């Protein structure tokens, strides 16, 4: 099974990247790939509970991620420093994640080889 790592680096609103990363994960998951999703820098905000972008006329993006398990996307890695720098903990997130430090993230990227950064 081909391994693909999708990396979310940006805040969920203000640009299209998080929404497109989500669409990409859905789009390639149906082809039965081994997908790992990594949240780093402002990308960790994508998983925060109770997002409400109504005033931006957008749909909340966080709610979609737990649903990805139904598409056999099971590996969610969060960069621990990015999370703590923003005053967040795993309790603030919409799903259970694997915490990783910088060198573990680097190792994961190396291990997956094919990387789609957003």
């Amino acid at each position, binding site marked *: 099974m081909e391994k693909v790592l999708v990396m979310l680096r940006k805040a969920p609103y203000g640009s299209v*990247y998080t929404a*497109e990363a989500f*669409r990409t994960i859905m789009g*390639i998951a149906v082809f039965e*790939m081994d997908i790992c999703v990594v949240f780093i820098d402002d990308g960790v905000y994508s998983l925060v509970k109770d997002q409400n972008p109504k005033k931006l006329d957008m749909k909340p993006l966080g709610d979609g991620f737990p649903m990805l398990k139904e598409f056999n996307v099971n590996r969610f890695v969060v960069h621990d420093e990015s999370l703590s720098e923003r005053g967040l903990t795993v309790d603030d997130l919409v799903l259970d994640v694997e915490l990783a430090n910088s060198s573990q993230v680097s190792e994961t990227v190396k291990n997956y080889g*094919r990387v789609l950064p957003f």
Partner: protein
Amino acid sequence: MKIGVMILEGPYQHQAVDSAYYFIQAAIARGHEIVGVFLYTDGVNNINKFINPPGERNISKRLSELGESGIDIVACTACSKFRGLRPDLKVEHVRQSGLGSLAEFLRAADRFVSFGD
């Protein structure tokens, strides 16, 4: 080596598509194979046939030439719809297709390289 490419930014505003173009040429010159180029989000704007920069490099023409040389260049259909890039507005030797093409390129590639912000 088999290499897949994704471009996430449009023409002229950002260097991404230019870097990708030179990367592809250099890779081919070294004997690598480009399994496909996927134009995603604003990247789809790079194949507009009405791009006409006086006295400057023509990005859509460059991509069309790469396509003519046999490289599969695919612009995301949904992103094209969002940006009003109708099929009749695209240059020759490129095509529009869905995320399935990205999945195909990912499968065929030993390495996958993205150009964007």
